[in-house]
């Protein structure tokens, strides 16, 4: 029978079990990388930060008490790393808006928004452009607002679960979400 994330984490903590650690990494690597990318907007940084989060899991697994879900605990480590990194690096918006080749969400969005030969209906083009604008606008929010929205959209977390990740009250998360959405609405209607 497959061990749960929580059981694997406890093995890592108690026995420094590298196989259990590897299993946890395999299970969460994709979501961790994607979440970090959504917050940071850079593929290399997302890779480094998600790996750093796994390293912290290995180092701190013995402090995981199993009262919360492993995913909540892990997301907290990862999101805090990303937010700290963002605070240190203030050029994210510039990167987000720049059109360097390769790995930025902007490039992906531009490719996704670009109409193909089959995309004749103007409404469809407009819809795709709106999607692209929404994700671009996300980069202009405060780190907390962005993290709350990304956790809700990417991970499907509830306000209560986001509160557990961001280590704040559910009411604060609701405020972050409300302000984030309001800012996005404003940006989308102005542009």
């Amino acid at each position, binding site marked *: 029978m497959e061990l749960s994330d929580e059981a694997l984490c406890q093995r890592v903590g108690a026995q420094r079990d*590298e196989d259990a*650690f*590897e299993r946890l*990494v*395999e299970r969460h*690597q*994709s979501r961790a*990388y*994607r979440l970090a*990318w*959504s917050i940071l907007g850079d*593929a290399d940084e*997302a*890779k480094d930060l998600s*790996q750093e989060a*796994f*390293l912290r899991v*290995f*180092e701190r697994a013995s402090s995981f008490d199993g009262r919360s879900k492993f995913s909540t605990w892990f997301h907290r480590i990862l999101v805090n790393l990303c937010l700290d990194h963002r605070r240190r690096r203030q050029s994210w918006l510039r990167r987000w808006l720049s059109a360097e080749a*390769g*790995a930025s*969400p902007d490039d*992906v*969005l531009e490719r*996704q*928004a670009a109409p193909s030969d089959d995309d004749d209906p103007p409404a469809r083009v407009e*819809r*795709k452009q*709106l*999607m*692209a*604008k*929404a*994700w671009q606008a*996300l980069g202009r929010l405060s780190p907390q607002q962005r993290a709350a*929205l990304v956790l*809700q*959209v*990417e991970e499907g977390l*509830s*306000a*209560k679960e986001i509160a557990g990740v961001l280590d704040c009250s559910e*009411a604060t998360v*609701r*405020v972050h*979400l*409300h302000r984030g*959405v*309001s800012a*996005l*609405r404003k940006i*989308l*209607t102005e542009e």
Partner: protein
Amino acid sequence: MTRHPETELVPYLRGELRAEEQEAVSRHLQECATCRLSLEETRRVFEALRAGRPSPPEPDWRRYRAELRSKLAERSAPRWSWTAPRLLPIAATAAVAALALVLVLRPGTAPSPSGEDLPPFQEVVIGSHLDLLRDYSVVENLDLLEDLDVVQDLDALSPSSAG
């Protein structure tokens, strides 16, 4: 509900409110056109975000995990060890220097201005700064050098004749 339930709109859309809160927001929405518009725009924002979710470039996961294992090994390795061979000379030098400093600064053991009658340990410390002592085999065989005639006549050599 008299106030506009602004912060409840997102959890309302997701059905996360308690039953009585959900009901209160529904009642307010029936009466308030402003909040109905806000709700509709909020719904559009979430739809746009969900539908337009960009995909990051996919890493090579095998390589990703190999890098992670390497970082873990690096992080787990002791950063400093007495047994690390390359650190031994540094540690030994530091220990000798610290001991020498203690002995030199100890009251009553200051070296005489003439440099004569130095305690044996100070001789070793001073000697360690001489280039000659770096090649210890030369020092050990110094008595053999003294047997050579040229060494005995060194004082008699002038700089011009030495060239």
